[in-house]
């Protein structure tokens, strides 16, 4: 007989240490996979986790990749903390990109310091509006936000497809599915010559700080946390659950929209069909790996971003299949959830008792 019991006392330090344990287990598991594939595990892991960031360019690329992940995950942490399962950050990112990109095209050829802030703001509002759809449907019609937000991802993708193929396609682009390159005034300023790291990182850092402020220093943050722990308690305390659902979705959508607009005005510079390699979904892993904590999310986004870069370098230097990157992401989540389970529950092995047979 195996009996599973809930643990009553979980030490907070262990709670924040398990993600690190999960990463080490992933490294170990990854080493075994490399070994089975016929590579020297130490060398493979070195190419995977050290080589990509061994120079300034590599490190800057890590930040470029981590910026949208961190931003989206921060937004998601508001939703997840309050038990709202927003799975559609990818759609909110794309819709934010569409709105921001539309404004950028509107200002095509305009110079002026005001252009970029307007684009960024409109992208955030776009993501916010798109995230409000599942929130409003949940509060007033009791729909399932997981399903609605997920399905809206495909709506956003198809809308982007339609726009870049049709009305917004580059008039000089031979009908290829992409818009014009935005004007210089609509691009994120590059921080260092020759690197792609852009001003979007400040937006991300500011968002991290603000979210920490909201979550830990305001009454709203307290409400969010209480309703996450127990909805009944929250209701008993008289918190307005409906308003809060809409607010957390708005925050989450705005963050995803910002990430989208950061990508198109940053490294991409135009709208096309592939503005996001599923950042919105990967950010879910980041949010949980970071324990829904703003500082934790910063580190988690760096680690997950590294799995992308690592997969590329490992393929370049060792011809390891590129999909090992996704295997690593999967393993991190698997080990994290596994150790969480053991953290909150204990498994008791009991001898078979006669009266149970």
């Amino acid at each position, binding site marked *: 007989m195996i009996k599973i019991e809930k643990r009553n006392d979980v030490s907070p330090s262990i709670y924040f240490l398990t993600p690190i344990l999960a990463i080490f287990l992933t490294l170990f598991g990854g080493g075994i996979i490399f070994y089975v594939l016929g590579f020297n595990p130490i060398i493979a892991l070195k190419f995977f986790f050290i080589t990509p960031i061994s120079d300034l*360019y590599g490190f800057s690329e890590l930040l470029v990749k981590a910026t949208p992940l961190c931003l989206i995950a921060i937004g998601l942490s508001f939703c997840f903390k309050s038990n709202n399962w927003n799975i559609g950050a990818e759609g909110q990112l794309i819709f934010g990109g569409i709105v921001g990109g539309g404004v950028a095209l509107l200002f095509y050829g305009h110079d002026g310091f005001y252009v970029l802030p307007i684009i960024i703001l409109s992208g955030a509002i776009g993501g916010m509006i798109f995230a409000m759809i599942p929130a409003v449907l949940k509060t007033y019609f009791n729909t399932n936000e997981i399903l609605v937000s997920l399905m809206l991802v495909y709506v956003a993708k198809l809308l982007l497809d339609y726009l870049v193929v049709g009305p917004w396609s580059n008039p000089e682009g031979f009908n290829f599915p992409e818009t014009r390159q935005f004007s210089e005034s609509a691009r994120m300023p590059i921080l260092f010559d020759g690197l792609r790291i852009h001003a979007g990182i400040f937006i991300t850092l500011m968002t991290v700080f603000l979210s920490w402020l909201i979550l830990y220093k305001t009454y709203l943050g307290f409400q969010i946390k209480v309703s996450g722990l127990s909805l009944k308690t929250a209701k008993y305390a008289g918190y307005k659950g409906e308003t809060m659902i809409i607010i957390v979705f708005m925050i989450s959508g705005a963050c995803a929209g910002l990430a989208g607009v950061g990508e198109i005005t940053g490294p991409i510079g135009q709208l096309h069909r*592939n503005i996001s*390699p599923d950042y919105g979904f990967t950010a879910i892993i980041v949010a949980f790996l970071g324990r829904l904590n703003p500082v934790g999310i910063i580190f988690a986004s760096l680690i997950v971003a590294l799995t992308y870069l690592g997969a*590329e370098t490992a*393929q*370049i*230097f060792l*011809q390891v299949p590129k999909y090992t990157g996704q295997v690593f992401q999967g393993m991190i989540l698997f080990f994290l959830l596994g150790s969480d389970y053991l953290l909150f529950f204990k498994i008791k092995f009991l001898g078979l008792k006669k009266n149970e047979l």
Partner: protein
Amino acid sequence: MYKYFLRYIISVLFLLGLSVQANADFKVGFVYVGPTGDHGWTYQHDEGRKAVEAAGIKTTYVESVPEGADAERVIRQLAQSGHDLIFTTSFGYMDPTNKVAKDFPNVKFEHATGYKREHSNVSTYSARFYEGRTLLGHMAGKMTKTNVIGYIASFPIPEVIRGINAMTLAAQKVNPDIKTKIVWVFTWYDPGKESEAAQALIDQGADIIMQHTDSTAPVQVAEKAGVWSFGQASDMQRFAPKSILTSIIDDWAPYYVERSIAARDGTWKQQDTWHGLKEGMVAMAPYNSAMGSDLVKEVEQLQKDLASGKTHSFTGPIYDQKGNILVAEGSVADDGMLAGMNVYVKGVEGDIPQ
């Protein structure tokens, strides 16, 4: 403790040294948009890479590189890690390729299907797939009973429209009653969407299915429905042995070998390549004997004529859908017109999505 630490440092330095030393050889890098196992576009590029490898030149590839912000990093990493020639094999890599080329003047870049050569170390190359489409059209016109040809198209770019037109013109020549029905799927690779499109075309009476997308789904649907089909990019015969009449094969191998050797020997020069049946960049898979030996002979002759230049896929008179003349009688379309083609010829149904 200190001793272990020192040992660790030394071993790391040693490993770093290994990776630096490996950079001394001449190396060619490839960037793929899909997985090497797609049995279509990327698969054929990888076959080309293997040919380069067989010629004694070291190669590296990175597969499934999204056409967004990641492409530039991958291309730059290849350039930085000692690759001397880099093939970027999808249209979406055009701007990143040119951007990286600017920073690495000593590395040569070859971009497939694009039109931007902003620096002297960037070449572009593509294949005259439309010549293969002419052969397909000839066979389709002869084989169809319903006179409806179903065409699964990806994006309304000149290359795809050129293929539709070349096929329709050739089919009309042998069968004036044919009509071309098109479904736009707006993807290069999506087995689900492609098979739905094939089914929709069959339901509309098409008994010939051809595709300008990369998965094997359409030929498999055709096989099940008992209609004829044509493979795309690689020989897809084994996925639909009864249904496939032939496949248009993209054979990049000779070009990749030639350019790699040129780059190694220092004779590489910037150029814009557009090769076809003549040079072998477009090749045809074996013809299905089910179409009869007479037709096979006809098509083989047409293939020879296209390769030798005796016949041109776009020979006048060619009319657009409204009946306006596009190419006058007795003349052929020039490459400029082909490169920017954005109207359907007469006999194609529907409008180009705008």
